């Protein structure tokens, strides 16, 4: 009888506790208050006094890079790529603009898409759209969480070539018309055909095949190829112009992923080297002085205490084992 009563009481207590848990969880979900904190590799954008727009700006000297591994995109048609194993990323902010500098090794400088077999080197950053409530699928976003992609292309930076530059010996008596109307894609408003597009395209996507230009095109970018390496700087003002695009502010975090296309490998669209999402943290504080071995000291203390406690644990284990034996 007593046992039964205890059982019912515990049952009741458990039900009550369960109800409390459910209500609290529901409340958190409703409020969108996530008590957990992301711990993925973090790229921190510290404030910079100098203008970091140029890839070789001195502002980048002290910005610490993170090395992000890249892999072939092999999940979805059109798969392939993987010829660029890592990309090095740095970030800064200056006058409420976010700057991201990417650097990777590529033996060939592919800037022309003049011939049918030529593809351009390119690099892109992917952010969750402002409207995304959870980290979107890295693969071009998902229906309930879109992504904002900034793509820099070497061929766009180089500009659309004239036939006479592609083929110096070509002889064309005359073209009946060189109006935009006869550059069909240009006339159709296609950004890739627009000679004034600039090096960076600002795109949005909500799953494969839905990639389209964002409503505004204010992302700037500049790439430099030197000594077998591309360095590209992207920049955009913090405020996202609409919910489909990313938005930033000092002291917040978001996610960031990278993709690199190697033109000479035939990389384009899905065929590329891709990273997973890492965290982008926009720091309000300046980078702690480079000399301050603060981290190093605390880490040493931590390591020492760890060793101590391990020794203690092993000691206790031995002791416990002996005790067990002797009793």
């Amino acid at each position: 009888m007593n046992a039964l009563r205890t059982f019912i009481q515990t049952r009741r207590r458990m039900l009550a506790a369960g109800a409390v848990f459910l209500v609290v969880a529901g409340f958190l979900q409703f409020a969108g208050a996530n008590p957990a904190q992301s711990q993925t590799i973090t790229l921190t954008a510290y404030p910079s006094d100098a203008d970091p727009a140029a890839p070789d700006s001195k502002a980048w000297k002290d910005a610490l890079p993170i090395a992000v591994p890249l892999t072939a995109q092999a999940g979805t048609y059109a798969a392939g790529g993987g010829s660029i194993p890592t990309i090095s990323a740095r970030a800064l902010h200056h006058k409420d603009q976010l700057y991201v500098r990417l650097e990777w090794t590529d033996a060939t400088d592919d800037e022309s898409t003049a011939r049918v077999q030529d593809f351009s080197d390119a690099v892109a950053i992917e952010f969750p759209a402002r409207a995304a409530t959870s980290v979107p699928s890295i693969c071009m976003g998902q229906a309930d969480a879109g992504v904002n992609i900034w793509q820099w292309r070497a061929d766009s930076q180089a500009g659309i070539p004239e036939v006479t530059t592609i083929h110096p010996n070509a002889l064309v008596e005359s073209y009946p018309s060189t109006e935009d109307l006869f550059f069909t894609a240009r006339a159709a408003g296609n950004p890739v055909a627009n000679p004034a597009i600039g090096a960076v395209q600002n795109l949005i996507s909500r799953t494969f095949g839905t990639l389209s230009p964002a409503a505004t095109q204010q992302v700037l970018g500049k790439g430099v190829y030197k000594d077998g390496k591309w360095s590209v700087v992207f920049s955009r003002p913090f405020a996202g112009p609409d919910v489909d695009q990313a938005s930033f502010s000092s002291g917040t975090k978001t996610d960031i992923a990278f993709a690199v296309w190697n033109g000479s490998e035939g990389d384009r669209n899905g065929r590329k080297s891709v990273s997973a999402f890492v965290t982008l943290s926009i720091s309000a504080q300046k980078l702690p002085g480079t000399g301050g071995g603060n981290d190093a000291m605390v880490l040493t203390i931590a390591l020492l205490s760890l060793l101590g406690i391990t020794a203690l644990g092993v000691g206790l284990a031995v002791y416990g084992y002996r005790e067990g034996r002797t009793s």
Partner: protein
Amino acid sequence: MPKVYNWQIGREMDYRFANGPAKLQFAAVFNTNRCIACQTCTMACKTTWTFSPGQELMWWNNVETKPYGGFPQHWDVNILTLQEKANPGGQTWDVSKKDPAKAPYGSFSGKTIFETADQVNNMVTGYIPPEDDWKAPNIFEDAATKHSPTGVSLPEHAGWFFYLQRICNHCTYPACLAACPRNAVYKREEDGIVLIDQNRCRGYRKCVEACPYKKSMYRPTTRTSEKCVGCYPRVEGTDPLTEGLPMETRCMTACIGKIRLQGLVKVGADGLWIEDRQNPLYYLVNVAKVALPLYPQFGTQPNVYYIPPRWVPRDYLRQMFGPGVDDAIAAYMNPSRETLAVLQLFRATQSIVFSYKVEQGPKTGELNVGGQKRELFNDTVIGYDSRGKEIVRVAVDEPVIERPSQVAMNTI
């Protein structure tokens, strides 16, 4: 991967998309036996669609000299090689599995270009011909396989060549469309014309890589791919000339050799042609079986049909047009009264002929073809437009007109 029915290979096959709704399909018959490679068709297309910067190497219509020529060079040999590598020794036909409606040429037991691709890296087996391959629209013009000092005779010429006229096939299962990761290529429900959306194309050239006929082409000045548009304003009937009635394309109507007939055929949602006995294209392809698809084994179900050249070694032709070649040549060499009448419709009018009628005429002669006696009749074929109105009437016997001898020498 959805399954679709491809009647040209007589079986189901894998294709990225299921059949969509379809009403009419752009189709044409080219009679290779009559082409003189004057390239009037080529220039008709060029001067209409591809005369602007960046389109210099683009020939949506081209006429090439087989077997050596090709635009781009060796396109067909290259695809056949890729396919053979992917399925060594397996690219064969089973002609015992014939069915008049669903498998008129038998069943292809090999793999299509969709079936040899892994569907992850590529939807279609193909390649991008490098720029140099596109530089000569009719390379090896008139080059025969060998010199025949003693002359040649049917059925197979010792030294031979022939002209192959090529435009986009507006395939029922387009490879270009299946390959586009952005779904920028689309096939129109109303006429089956395959177009590249010039707003969405991002110049990935997956269609250039995938189209086995290499009829999707890259334009560096817009960084997009362009292709034959099937002269869709004419097919729609928006050209003022025909007052709202569907009209044949530029390359068709310009044809000097009268080798081309183009129109629209009724198709069902399963990719099969709906019976339409009096449509001249339906008649030539499905009843007389005198015209065959180009490389049906690729699996795209192309919609330009060829009357094979009757002097060319049959194994070459079987590879190019499938196992229907022998019947098609027989039907062409010794045509029925109806076939002969329908052949008169080629280039008789610019408007699309939707149906025809043959009025029988008197016997006008006898011939001996390959040991067979043949009678000739002066039948008359009458063509009707989309509204059933008569638009053309041609007799088998061409009227002989003698010019008066006094006409000045330089008058034509």
